[in-house]
Protein backbone atom coordinates (compact mmCIF):
# COMPACT_ATOMS: atom_id res chain seq x y z
CA UNK A 1 0.00 0.00 0.00
CA UNK A 2 1.45 3.28 -1.00
CA UNK A 3 1.49 6.24 1.29
CA UNK A 4 -1.08 7.89 -0.90
CA UNK A 5 -3.60 5.24 -0.23
CA UNK A 6 -3.70 5.90 3.48
CA UNK A 7 -7.09 7.32 4.26
CA UNK A 8 -6.21 10.93 4.81
CA UNK A 9 -7.80 12.41 7.89
CA UNK A 10 -10.02 15.32 7.03
CA UNK A 11 -8.43 18.38 8.52
CA UNK A 12 -10.37 19.71 11.45
CA UNK A 13 -12.56 22.55 10.33
CA UNK A 14 -11.68 25.14 12.92
CA UNK A 15 -13.81 27.77 11.31
CA UNK A 16 -16.98 25.92 12.29
CA UNK A 17 -15.88 26.16 15.89
CA UNK A 18 -15.01 29.81 15.52
CA UNK A 19 -18.40 30.56 13.99
CA UNK A 20 -20.25 28.72 16.71
CA UNK A 21 -18.18 29.59 19.74
CA UNK A 22 -19.28 33.15 20.61
CA UNK A 23 -22.96 32.40 20.33
CA UNK A 24 -22.52 29.11 22.07
CA UNK A 25 -20.65 30.58 25.01
CA UNK A 26 -22.83 33.59 25.67
CA UNK A 27 -25.94 31.55 25.21
CA UNK A 28 -24.81 28.70 27.40
CA UNK A 29 -23.59 30.95 30.18
CA UNK A 30 -26.53 33.31 30.35
CA UNK A 31 -29.35 31.14 29.23
CA UNK A 32 -28.81 27.43 29.45
CA UNK A 33 -26.94 27.31 32.75
CA UNK A 34 -29.44 29.48 34.61
CA UNK A 35 -32.40 27.74 33.07
CA UNK A 36 -31.05 24.26 33.63
CA UNK A 37 -30.35 25.23 37.22
CA UNK A 38 -33.93 26.31 37.54
CA UNK A 39 -35.48 23.32 35.82
CA UNK A 40 -33.65 20.87 38.04
CA UNK A 41 -35.49 22.43 40.96
CA UNK A 42 -38.46 20.46 39.72
CA UNK A 43 -36.87 17.36 41.21
CA UNK A 44 -36.62 18.89 44.65
CA UNK A 45 -38.97 20.16 47.26
CA UNK A 46 -38.35 22.53 50.09
CA UNK A 47 -39.15 20.83 53.34
CA UNK A 48 -38.31 22.73 56.52
CA UNK A 49 -36.00 25.12 54.72
CA UNK A 50 -34.08 22.21 53.20
CA UNK A 51 -34.10 21.30 49.52
CA UNK A 52 -34.85 17.62 49.40
CA UNK A 53 -34.59 15.44 46.33
CA UNK A 54 -38.01 13.99 45.65
CA UNK A 55 -37.63 12.50 42.20
CA UNK A 56 -40.72 12.95 40.12
CA UNK A 57 -42.98 13.72 43.07
CA UNK A 58 -43.62 17.24 41.90
CA UNK A 59 -44.80 15.95 38.57
CA UNK A 60 -46.93 13.36 40.25
CA UNK A 61 -48.48 16.15 42.23
CA UNK A 62 -48.93 18.30 39.14
CA UNK A 63 -50.86 15.59 37.35
CA UNK A 64 -52.26 13.56 40.17
CA UNK A 65 -53.56 16.25 42.48
CA UNK A 66 -56.66 17.96 41.14
CA UNK A 67 -55.60 21.18 42.88
CA UNK A 68 -52.85 21.41 40.28
CA UNK A 69 -53.96 19.23 37.43
CA UNK A 70 -57.29 20.97 36.86
CA UNK A 71 -55.50 24.26 36.49
CA UNK A 72 -52.82 22.73 34.34
CA UNK A 73 -55.20 21.14 31.87
CA UNK A 74 -57.32 24.27 31.80
CA UNK A 75 -54.25 26.37 31.03
CA UNK A 76 -53.05 23.92 28.43
CA UNK A 77 -56.36 23.83 26.65
CA UNK A 78 -56.64 27.61 26.73
CA UNK A 79 -53.17 27.77 25.34
CA UNK A 80 -54.08 25.45 22.51
CA UNK A 81 -57.01 27.67 21.65
CA UNK A 82 -54.77 30.72 21.85
CA UNK A 83 -52.41 29.03 19.41
CA UNK A 84 -55.18 27.92 17.07
CA UNK A 85 -56.45 31.47 16.74
CA UNK A 86 -53.00 32.73 15.96
CA UNK A 87 -52.49 30.09 13.33
CA UNK A 88 -55.86 30.68 11.77
CA UNK A 89 -55.94 34.44 11.96
CA UNK A 90 -52.53 35.94 12.54
CA UNK A 91 -50.48 33.95 10.09
CA UNK A 92 -52.87 34.03 7.14
CA UNK A 93 -53.35 37.76 7.58
CA UNK A 94 -49.61 38.22 7.91
CA UNK A 95 -48.97 36.25 4.76
CA UNK A 96 -51.70 38.08 2.89
CA UNK A 97 -50.36 41.46 3.88
CA UNK A 98 -46.83 40.45 2.99
CA UNK A 99 -47.99 39.18 -0.37
CA UNK A 100 -49.77 42.42 -1.10
CA UNK A 101 -46.84 44.49 0.09
CA UNK A 102 -44.34 42.59 -1.98
CA UNK A 103 -45.96 43.55 -5.23
CA UNK A 104 -43.20 45.44 -7.00
CA UNK A 105 -45.45 48.16 -8.33
CA UNK A 106 -47.28 48.92 -5.12
CA UNK A 107 -47.15 52.54 -4.04
CA UNK A 108 -46.85 53.75 -0.44
CA UNK A 109 -45.39 50.40 0.42
CA UNK A 110 -43.10 51.77 3.11
CA UNK A 111 -45.98 53.56 4.75
CA UNK A 112 -48.18 50.48 4.90
CA UNK A 113 -45.36 48.33 6.09
CA UNK A 114 -44.52 50.69 8.89
CA UNK A 115 -48.10 51.38 9.89
CA UNK A 116 -48.97 47.73 10.12
CA UNK A 117 -45.86 47.07 12.12
CA UNK A 118 -46.41 49.81 14.68
CA UNK A 119 -48.56 47.69 17.05
CA UNK A 120 -45.76 45.17 17.29
CA UNK A 121 -43.48 47.86 18.61
CA UNK A 122 -45.77 48.86 21.44
CA UNK A 123 -45.14 47.72 24.96
CA UNK A 124 -47.66 45.43 26.57
CA UNK A 125 -48.61 48.11 29.05
CA UNK A 126 -49.89 50.31 26.27
CA UNK A 127 -51.55 47.49 24.42
CA UNK A 128 -53.33 46.36 27.55
CA UNK A 129 -54.39 49.87 28.40
CA UNK A 130 -55.68 50.84 25.01
CA UNK A 131 -57.61 47.68 24.35
CA UNK A 132 -59.17 47.77 27.75
CA UNK A 133 -60.13 51.34 26.97
CA UNK A 134 -61.52 50.41 23.57
CA UNK A 135 -63.39 47.36 24.74
CA UNK A 136 -64.61 48.90 27.95
CA UNK A 137 -68.36 49.30 28.03
CA UNK A 138 -67.93 52.43 30.12
CA UNK A 139 -66.04 54.77 27.86
CA UNK A 140 -67.84 53.83 24.74
CA UNK A 141 -65.16 53.49 22.09
CA UNK A 142 -66.19 50.11 20.81
CA UNK A 143 -69.90 50.61 21.45
CA UNK A 144 -69.99 53.89 19.59
CA UNK A 145 -67.94 52.48 16.73
CA UNK A 146 -70.31 49.56 16.49
CA UNK A 147 -73.19 51.92 16.80
CA UNK A 148 -71.98 53.91 13.84
CA UNK A 149 -72.26 50.80 11.70
CA UNK A 150 -75.53 49.79 13.32
CA UNK A 151 -74.16 46.82 15.18
CA UNK A 152 -74.42 48.14 18.71
CA UNK A 153 -76.38 45.08 19.75
CA UNK A 154 -73.36 42.91 19.05
CA UNK A 155 -71.40 44.58 21.79
CA UNK A 156 -70.66 42.71 24.96
CA UNK A 157 -68.12 43.25 27.72
CA UNK A 158 -65.93 40.70 26.00
CA UNK A 159 -62.96 40.87 28.30
CA UNK A 160 -65.17 40.17 31.29
CA UNK A 161 -67.12 37.24 29.87
CA UNK A 162 -65.78 33.77 30.38
CA UNK A 163 -66.89 32.62 26.98
CA UNK A 164 -65.31 35.48 25.02
CA UNK A 165 -62.38 36.71 27.03
CA UNK A 166 -59.77 34.31 25.74
CA UNK A 167 -60.77 34.74 22.12
CA UNK A 168 -60.82 38.49 22.52
CA UNK A 169 -57.34 38.45 24.01
CA UNK A 170 -56.08 36.14 21.29
CA UNK A 171 -57.33 38.58 18.71
CA UNK A 172 -55.67 41.46 20.50
CA UNK A 173 -52.47 39.46 20.47
CA UNK A 174 -53.00 38.82 16.78
CA UNK A 175 -53.46 42.52 16.26
CA UNK A 176 -50.25 43.22 18.06
CA UNK A 177 -48.12 40.58 16.42
CA UNK A 178 -49.30 40.37 12.83
CA UNK A 179 -46.24 42.42 12.01
CA UNK A 180 -44.00 39.47 12.79
CA UNK A 181 -45.20 36.97 10.18
CA UNK A 182 -45.77 39.84 7.80
CA UNK A 183 -42.21 41.01 7.97
CA UNK A 184 -40.69 37.57 7.85
CA UNK A 185 -42.74 36.49 4.88
CA UNK A 186 -42.09 39.81 3.23
CA UNK A 187 -38.37 39.27 3.58
CA UNK A 188 -38.75 35.80 2.13
CA UNK A 189 -40.82 37.04 -0.78
CA UNK A 190 -38.21 39.64 -1.59
CA UNK A 191 -35.65 36.95 -2.15
CA UNK A 192 -37.63 35.31 -4.94
CA UNK A 193 -35.83 36.26 -8.13
CA UNK A 194 -37.72 38.72 -10.29
CA UNK A 195 -37.06 36.57 -13.31
CA UNK A 196 -39.02 33.64 -11.99
CA UNK A 197 -41.93 35.96 -11.41
CA UNK A 198 -41.50 37.37 -14.87
CA UNK A 199 -41.51 33.91 -16.32
CA UNK A 200 -44.76 33.26 -14.51
CA UNK A 201 -46.23 36.45 -15.88
CA UNK A 202 -45.30 35.32 -19.37
CA UNK A 203 -46.84 31.95 -18.68
CA UNK A 204 -50.08 33.68 -17.82
CA UNK A 205 -49.76 32.85 -14.14
CA UNK A 206 -50.70 36.04 -12.39
CA UNK A 207 -52.33 37.31 -9.25
CA UNK A 208 -53.57 34.76 -6.82
CA UNK A 209 -52.57 31.71 -8.75
CA UNK A 210 -49.09 33.14 -9.04
CA UNK A 211 -49.03 33.34 -5.27
CA UNK A 212 -50.24 29.78 -4.79
CA UNK A 213 -48.23 28.15 -7.51
CA UNK A 214 -45.00 30.07 -7.54
CA UNK A 215 -44.45 32.17 -4.49
CA UNK A 216 -45.92 30.01 -1.76
CA UNK A 217 -43.90 26.90 -2.59
CA UNK A 218 -40.77 29.00 -2.68
CA UNK A 219 -41.36 30.52 0.74
CA UNK A 220 -42.62 27.36 2.37
CA UNK A 221 -39.64 27.16 4.73
CA UNK A 222 -40.49 30.64 5.98
CA UNK A 223 -44.08 29.62 6.52
CA UNK A 224 -42.67 26.74 8.54
CA UNK A 225 -40.64 29.18 10.58
CA UNK A 226 -43.54 31.44 11.37
CA UNK A 227 -45.63 28.44 12.35
CA UNK A 228 -43.05 27.14 14.75
CA UNK A 229 -42.30 30.60 16.07
CA UNK A 230 -45.98 31.15 16.63
CA UNK A 231 -46.16 27.84 18.44
CA UNK A 232 -43.21 28.62 20.64
CA UNK A 233 -44.31 32.18 21.22
CA UNK A 234 -47.86 31.22 22.09
CA UNK A 235 -46.93 28.49 24.51
CA UNK A 236 -44.56 30.90 26.17
CA UNK A 237 -46.97 33.80 26.07
CA UNK A 238 -47.54 35.62 29.28
CA UNK A 239 -47.30 39.38 29.20
CA UNK A 240 -50.47 40.28 27.37
CA UNK A 241 -52.71 38.15 29.55
CA UNK A 242 -50.87 39.33 32.60
CA UNK A 243 -51.24 43.01 31.81
CA UNK A 244 -54.77 42.74 30.53
CA UNK A 245 -56.30 40.20 32.92
CA UNK A 246 -53.87 40.03 35.79
CA UNK A 247 -52.03 37.01 37.08
CA UNK A 248 -55.26 35.24 38.00
CA UNK A 249 -56.25 35.37 34.33
CA UNK A 250 -59.89 36.02 34.99
CA UNK A 251 -62.73 35.75 34.68
CA UNK A 252 -62.70 32.47 36.52
CA UNK A 253 -59.37 31.37 34.98
CA UNK A 254 -60.88 31.42 31.53
CA UNK A 255 -57.84 33.20 30.11
CA UNK A 256 -55.29 31.27 32.11
CA UNK A 257 -52.55 29.97 29.87
CA UNK A 258 -49.43 28.07 30.75
CA UNK A 259 -47.41 31.24 31.11
CA UNK A 260 -49.68 32.80 33.70
CA UNK A 261 -50.15 29.50 35.47
CA UNK A 262 -46.41 29.11 35.65
CA UNK A 263 -45.97 32.67 36.85
CA UNK A 264 -48.33 32.23 39.75
CA UNK A 265 -46.74 28.98 40.76
CA UNK A 266 -43.15 30.08 40.37
CA UNK A 267 -43.19 33.66 41.55
CA UNK A 268 -46.33 33.54 43.62
CA UNK A 269 -49.08 36.08 43.53
CA UNK A 270 -50.63 38.27 46.17
CA UNK A 271 -50.82 35.99 49.23
CA UNK A 272 -49.80 32.93 47.29
CA UNK A 273 -46.11 32.36 47.86
CA UNK A 274 -43.90 31.41 45.00
CA UNK A 275 -43.06 27.74 44.84
CA UNK A 276 -40.00 27.42 42.62
CA UNK A 277 -40.15 23.65 42.77
CA UNK A 278 -43.67 23.28 41.51
CA UNK A 279 -43.03 26.20 39.21
CA UNK A 280 -40.03 24.41 37.78
CA UNK A 281 -42.14 21.30 37.30
CA UNK A 282 -44.65 23.29 35.32
CA UNK A 283 -41.88 24.98 33.38
CA UNK A 284 -40.42 21.58 32.61
CA UNK A 285 -43.74 20.44 31.25
CA UNK A 286 -44.05 23.54 29.14
CA UNK A 287 -40.53 23.02 27.98
CA UNK A 288 -41.26 19.44 27.02
CA UNK A 289 -44.38 20.41 25.13
CA UNK A 290 -42.57 23.08 23.19
CA UNK A 291 -39.55 20.89 22.70
CA UNK A 292 -41.73 18.17 21.28
CA UNK A 293 -43.23 20.64 18.83
CA UNK A 294 -39.88 22.04 17.83
CA UNK A 295 -38.33 18.61 17.53
CA UNK A 296 -41.14 17.47 15.28
CA UNK A 297 -40.56 20.54 13.21
CA UNK A 298 -36.78 20.23 13.07
CA UNK A 299 -36.58 16.54 12.41
CA UNK A 300 -39.78 15.73 10.57
CA UNK A 301 -40.80 18.88 8.77
CA UNK A 302 -37.76 21.03 8.27
CA UNK A 303 -35.72 18.20 6.83
CA UNK A 304 -38.47 17.55 4.32
CA UNK A 305 -38.99 21.11 3.26
CA UNK A 306 -37.28 21.82 0.01
CA UNK A 307 -35.21 24.93 -0.16
CA UNK A 308 -34.33 26.71 -3.30
CA UNK A 309 -31.27 28.75 -3.81
CA UNK A 310 -31.36 31.94 -5.71
Amino acid sequence: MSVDDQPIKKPFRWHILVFLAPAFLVYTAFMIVPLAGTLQLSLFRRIDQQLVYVGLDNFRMLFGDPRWSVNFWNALWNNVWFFIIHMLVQNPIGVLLAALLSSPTLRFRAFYRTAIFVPTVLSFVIVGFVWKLILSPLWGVAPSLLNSVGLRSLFAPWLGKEEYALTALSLISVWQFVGIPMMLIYAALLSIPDEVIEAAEMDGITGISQFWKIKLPLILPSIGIISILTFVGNFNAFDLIYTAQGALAGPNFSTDILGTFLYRAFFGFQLQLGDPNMGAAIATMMFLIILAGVAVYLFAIQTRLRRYQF
Partner: protein
Amino acid sequence: MSRAAHSPARSAAAHAVLIAYTAIALFPVLLIVINSLKSRNAIFRSPLALPTPETFDPVGYTTVMAQGDFLLYFQNSLIVTVGSLFFVILFGAMAAFALSEYRFRGNTLTGLYLALGIMIPIRLGTVAILQMMVASGLVNTLTALILVYTAQGLPLCIFILSEFMKTVSDDLKNAGRIDGLSEYRIFFRLVLPLVRPAMATVAVFTMIPIWNDLWFPLILAPSEGTKTVTLGAQIFIGQFVTNWNAVLAALSLAILPVLVLYLIFSRQLIRGITSGAVK
Protein backbone atom coordinates in the same frame (compact mmCIF):
# COMPACT_ATOMS: atom_id res chain seq x y z
CA MET B 1 -41.05 44.75 -13.81
CA SER B 2 -43.29 46.88 -15.90
CA ARG B 3 -46.33 48.84 -14.97
CA ALA B 4 -48.42 46.90 -17.41
CA ALA B 5 -47.80 43.79 -15.36
CA HIS B 6 -50.34 44.96 -12.85
CA SER B 7 -53.86 45.83 -13.68
CA PRO B 8 -55.47 48.85 -12.03
CA ALA B 9 -58.27 46.73 -10.61
CA ARG B 10 -55.86 44.44 -8.88
CA SER B 11 -53.87 47.23 -7.37
CA ALA B 12 -57.01 49.01 -6.24
CA ALA B 13 -58.07 45.87 -4.41
CA ALA B 14 -54.64 45.59 -2.86
CA HIS B 15 -54.81 49.16 -1.65
CA ALA B 16 -58.28 48.61 -0.26
CA VAL B 17 -57.13 45.66 1.83
CA LEU B 18 -54.03 47.45 3.00
CA ILE B 19 -55.83 50.62 3.90
CA ALA B 20 -58.42 48.66 5.82
CA TYR B 21 -55.80 46.81 7.77
CA THR B 22 -53.74 49.93 8.32
CA ALA B 23 -56.79 51.51 9.88
CA ILE B 24 -57.18 48.57 12.22
CA ALA B 25 -53.52 48.69 13.10
CA LEU B 26 -53.31 52.40 13.64
CA PHE B 27 -56.62 53.22 15.26
CA PRO B 28 -55.64 52.09 18.76
CA VAL B 29 -52.27 53.74 18.36
CA LEU B 30 -53.87 57.00 17.38
CA LEU B 31 -56.14 56.66 20.35
CA ILE B 32 -53.09 56.50 22.58
CA VAL B 33 -51.45 59.48 21.00
CA ILE B 34 -54.63 61.53 21.05
CA ASN B 35 -55.28 60.71 24.66
CA SER B 36 -51.77 61.28 25.80
CA LEU B 37 -52.43 64.93 24.96
CA LYS B 38 -55.61 65.23 26.95
CA SER B 39 -56.43 65.76 30.57
CA ARG B 40 -57.38 62.71 32.59
CA ASN B 41 -61.00 63.69 32.72
CA ALA B 42 -61.14 64.15 29.00
CA ILE B 43 -59.55 60.78 28.37
CA PHE B 44 -62.34 58.98 30.12
CA ARG B 45 -65.18 61.36 29.29
CA SER B 46 -64.69 61.13 25.55
CA PRO B 47 -61.75 58.95 24.58
CA LEU B 48 -62.48 59.32 20.87
CA ALA B 49 -62.44 63.09 20.78
CA LEU B 50 -59.44 64.99 19.50
CA PRO B 51 -57.85 67.30 22.01
CA THR B 52 -59.69 70.62 22.01
CA PRO B 53 -58.39 73.81 23.59
CA GLU B 54 -60.31 72.93 26.74
CA THR B 55 -59.21 69.35 26.95
CA PHE B 56 -55.67 69.77 25.64
CA ASP B 57 -53.32 69.05 28.46
CA PRO B 58 -49.70 68.08 28.04
CA VAL B 59 -49.56 67.24 31.72
CA GLY B 60 -48.41 63.75 30.89
CA TYR B 61 -45.40 64.99 29.01
CA THR B 62 -44.55 67.64 31.55
CA THR B 63 -44.78 65.07 34.33
CA VAL B 64 -42.51 62.75 32.45
CA MET B 65 -40.01 65.48 31.80
CA ALA B 66 -40.11 66.60 35.40
CA GLN B 67 -39.81 63.16 36.90
CA GLY B 68 -36.42 61.56 36.79
CA ASP B 69 -33.95 61.86 34.04
CA PHE B 70 -35.82 60.59 31.04
CA LEU B 71 -33.21 61.61 28.55
CA LEU B 72 -30.76 59.43 30.41
CA TYR B 73 -33.26 56.61 30.43
CA PHE B 74 -33.63 56.91 26.67
CA GLN B 75 -29.91 56.86 26.28
CA ASN B 76 -29.63 53.75 28.44
CA SER B 77 -32.34 52.00 26.48
CA LEU B 78 -30.65 52.85 23.23
CA ILE B 79 -27.25 51.67 24.41
CA VAL B 80 -28.65 48.42 25.68
CA THR B 81 -30.80 47.79 22.64
CA VAL B 82 -28.23 48.66 20.04
CA GLY B 83 -25.45 46.94 21.93
CA SER B 84 -27.39 43.72 22.34
CA LEU B 85 -28.57 43.88 18.76
CA PHE B 86 -25.05 44.15 17.52
CA PHE B 87 -23.93 41.06 19.37
CA VAL B 88 -27.08 39.10 18.67
CA ILE B 89 -26.80 39.74 14.96
CA LEU B 90 -23.08 39.16 14.80
CA PHE B 91 -22.90 36.03 16.93
CA GLY B 92 -26.24 34.75 15.75
CA ALA B 93 -25.39 35.15 12.09
CA MET B 94 -22.07 33.43 12.62
CA ALA B 95 -23.69 30.48 14.32
CA ALA B 96 -26.47 30.38 11.76
CA PHE B 97 -23.87 30.27 9.01
CA ALA B 98 -22.07 27.38 10.65
CA LEU B 99 -25.31 25.48 11.01
CA SER B 100 -26.63 26.14 7.54
CA GLU B 101 -23.43 25.90 5.57
CA TYR B 102 -21.53 22.97 6.98
CA ARG B 103 -22.52 19.42 7.42
CA PHE B 104 -20.91 18.13 10.54
CA ARG B 105 -21.81 15.59 13.12
CA GLY B 106 -24.37 16.93 15.56
CA ASN B 107 -25.42 19.72 13.26
CA THR B 108 -29.12 19.38 13.87
CA LEU B 109 -28.58 18.69 17.54
CA THR B 110 -26.52 21.83 17.89
CA GLY B 111 -29.32 23.65 16.15
CA LEU B 112 -31.80 22.21 18.58
CA TYR B 113 -29.57 23.08 21.51
CA LEU B 114 -29.31 26.65 20.33
CA ALA B 115 -33.08 26.79 20.03
CA LEU B 116 -33.79 25.51 23.54
CA GLY B 117 -33.59 29.01 24.89
CA ILE B 118 -36.82 30.13 23.30
CA MET B 119 -38.71 27.28 24.90
CA ILE B 120 -38.44 28.37 28.50
CA PRO B 121 -39.21 31.85 29.75
CA ILE B 122 -35.81 33.23 30.63
CA ARG B 123 -37.39 34.96 33.60
CA LEU B 124 -37.13 31.63 35.38
CA GLY B 125 -33.38 31.84 35.31
CA THR B 126 -33.41 35.21 36.98
CA VAL B 127 -31.88 34.21 40.29
CA ALA B 128 -28.99 32.37 38.73
CA ILE B 129 -28.34 35.21 36.32
CA LEU B 130 -28.51 37.75 39.08
CA GLN B 131 -26.13 35.69 41.19
CA MET B 132 -23.69 35.62 38.31
CA MET B 133 -23.94 39.34 37.89
CA VAL B 134 -23.50 39.91 41.63
CA ALA B 135 -20.46 37.67 41.61
CA SER B 136 -18.90 39.49 38.69
CA GLY B 137 -19.86 42.90 39.99
CA LEU B 138 -22.01 43.70 36.99
CA VAL B 139 -25.16 44.56 38.89
CA ASN B 140 -26.42 47.98 37.94
CA THR B 141 -24.39 48.10 34.77
CA LEU B 142 -25.71 48.14 31.25
CA THR B 143 -23.23 45.39 30.42
CA ALA B 144 -25.26 42.97 32.48
CA LEU B 145 -28.33 43.75 30.44
CA ILE B 146 -26.48 43.49 27.16
CA LEU B 147 -25.11 40.09 28.10
CA VAL B 148 -28.49 38.71 29.06
CA TYR B 149 -30.28 40.16 26.07
CA THR B 150 -27.61 38.86 23.75
CA ALA B 151 -28.14 35.37 25.09
CA GLN B 152 -31.86 35.84 24.96
CA GLY B 153 -31.91 37.08 21.37
CA LEU B 154 -29.60 34.46 19.94
CA PRO B 155 -31.95 31.49 19.53
CA LEU B 156 -34.48 33.33 17.39
CA CYS B 157 -31.76 34.98 15.37
CA ILE B 158 -30.03 31.70 14.66
CA PHE B 159 -33.29 29.99 13.87
CA ILE B 160 -34.38 32.52 11.30
CA LEU B 161 -31.05 33.38 9.77
CA SER B 162 -29.99 29.80 9.24
CA GLU B 163 -33.13 29.25 7.22
CA PHE B 164 -32.47 32.27 5.07
CA MET B 165 -28.80 31.46 4.66
CA LYS B 166 -29.75 28.18 3.11
CA THR B 167 -31.22 30.09 0.20
CA VAL B 168 -27.95 31.75 -0.71
CA SER B 169 -26.71 30.11 -3.87
CA ASP B 170 -24.02 27.51 -3.30
CA ASP B 171 -22.41 28.45 -6.56
CA LEU B 172 -21.93 31.91 -5.26
CA LYS B 173 -20.19 30.74 -2.13
CA ASN B 174 -18.22 28.28 -4.19
CA ALA B 175 -17.15 31.07 -6.50
CA GLY B 176 -15.82 32.75 -3.39
CA ARG B 177 -13.98 29.63 -2.33
CA ILE B 178 -12.46 29.28 -5.77
CA ASP B 179 -11.47 32.93 -5.51
CA GLY B 180 -9.49 31.93 -2.46
CA LEU B 181 -11.75 33.59 0.07
CA SER B 182 -11.51 32.18 3.56
CA GLU B 183 -14.68 30.90 5.15
CA TYR B 184 -14.74 34.02 7.28
CA ARG B 185 -14.63 36.26 4.27
CA ILE B 186 -17.27 34.25 2.52
CA PHE B 187 -19.42 34.84 5.55
CA PHE B 188 -18.74 38.51 5.94
CA ARG B 189 -18.35 39.56 2.33
CA LEU B 190 -20.80 37.32 0.52
CA VAL B 191 -23.39 35.75 2.77
CA LEU B 192 -24.09 38.59 5.16
CA PRO B 193 -24.77 41.18 2.48
CA LEU B 194 -27.04 38.76 0.69
CA VAL B 195 -29.25 38.02 3.67
CA ARG B 196 -29.70 41.66 4.51
CA PRO B 197 -33.50 41.52 4.43
CA ALA B 198 -33.48 38.61 6.84
CA MET B 199 -31.01 40.35 9.12
CA ALA B 200 -33.17 43.43 9.19
CA THR B 201 -36.12 41.26 10.09
CA VAL B 202 -34.23 39.55 12.86
CA ALA B 203 -32.92 42.85 14.12
CA VAL B 204 -36.43 44.19 14.42
CA PHE B 205 -37.71 41.05 16.10
CA THR B 206 -34.83 41.12 18.55
CA MET B 207 -35.01 44.78 19.28
CA ILE B 208 -38.64 44.99 20.33
CA PRO B 209 -38.65 42.67 23.33
CA ILE B 210 -35.38 44.16 24.49
CA TRP B 211 -36.66 47.67 24.25
CA ASN B 212 -39.91 46.84 25.98
CA ASP B 213 -38.50 44.57 28.63
CA LEU B 214 -39.25 45.55 32.16
CA TRP B 215 -38.03 42.61 34.12
CA PHE B 216 -34.30 42.51 33.66
CA PRO B 217 -33.78 46.24 34.02
CA LEU B 218 -35.75 45.98 37.23
CA ILE B 219 -33.65 43.11 38.51
CA LEU B 220 -30.23 43.72 37.06
CA ALA B 221 -29.96 47.46 36.68
CA PRO B 222 -32.60 49.33 38.62
CA SER B 223 -30.31 52.13 39.72
CA GLU B 224 -31.08 55.66 38.68
CA GLY B 225 -28.06 55.80 36.37
CA THR B 226 -28.90 52.63 34.49
CA LYS B 227 -32.68 52.76 34.29
CA THR B 228 -34.26 52.14 30.93
CA VAL B 229 -37.26 53.97 29.56
CA THR B 230 -39.68 51.17 30.19
CA LEU B 231 -38.54 50.86 33.76
CA GLY B 232 -38.64 54.60 34.16
CA ALA B 233 -42.22 54.71 32.94
CA GLN B 234 -43.20 52.20 35.59
CA ILE B 235 -42.81 54.85 38.20
CA PHE B 236 -46.21 56.16 37.18
CA ILE B 237 -47.93 52.85 37.70
CA GLY B 238 -48.94 52.91 41.31
CA GLN B 239 -50.52 50.30 43.52
CA PHE B 240 -53.91 51.92 43.49
CA VAL B 241 -53.56 55.02 41.40
CA THR B 242 -51.93 55.01 38.01
CA ASN B 243 -51.01 58.25 36.36
CA TRP B 244 -52.25 57.30 32.93
CA ASN B 245 -51.34 60.65 31.43
CA ALA B 246 -47.75 60.12 32.34
CA VAL B 247 -47.68 56.44 31.42
CA LEU B 248 -49.18 57.16 28.03
CA ALA B 249 -46.85 60.07 27.47
CA ALA B 250 -43.77 58.14 28.52
CA LEU B 251 -44.62 55.08 26.50
CA SER B 252 -45.72 57.12 23.48
CA LEU B 253 -42.38 58.83 23.57
CA ALA B 254 -40.74 55.48 23.97
CA ILE B 255 -42.20 54.28 20.68
CA LEU B 256 -40.32 56.89 18.72
CA PRO B 257 -36.77 55.55 19.04
CA VAL B 258 -37.88 52.01 18.19
CA LEU B 259 -39.78 53.30 15.23
CA VAL B 260 -36.71 55.12 14.05
CA LEU B 261 -34.67 51.97 14.45
CA TYR B 262 -37.37 50.06 12.60
CA LEU B 263 -37.26 52.51 9.75
CA ILE B 264 -33.50 52.23 9.59
CA PHE B 265 -33.64 48.47 9.49
CA SER B 266 -36.51 48.26 7.07
CA ARG B 267 -34.44 50.12 4.53
CA GLN B 268 -32.54 46.88 4.26
CA LEU B 269 -35.63 45.15 2.96
CA ILE B 270 -34.51 45.34 -0.61
CA ARG B 271 -35.85 43.43 -3.49
CA GLY B 272 -33.70 41.58 -5.95
CA ILE B 273 -30.59 41.61 -3.86
CA THR B 274 -29.37 38.41 -5.47
CA SER B 275 -30.49 39.10 -8.99
CA GLY B 276 -27.89 38.82 -11.67
CA ALA B 277 -25.89 36.30 -9.70
CA VAL B 278 -26.56 33.07 -11.47
CA LYS B 279 -28.17 31.94 -14.65
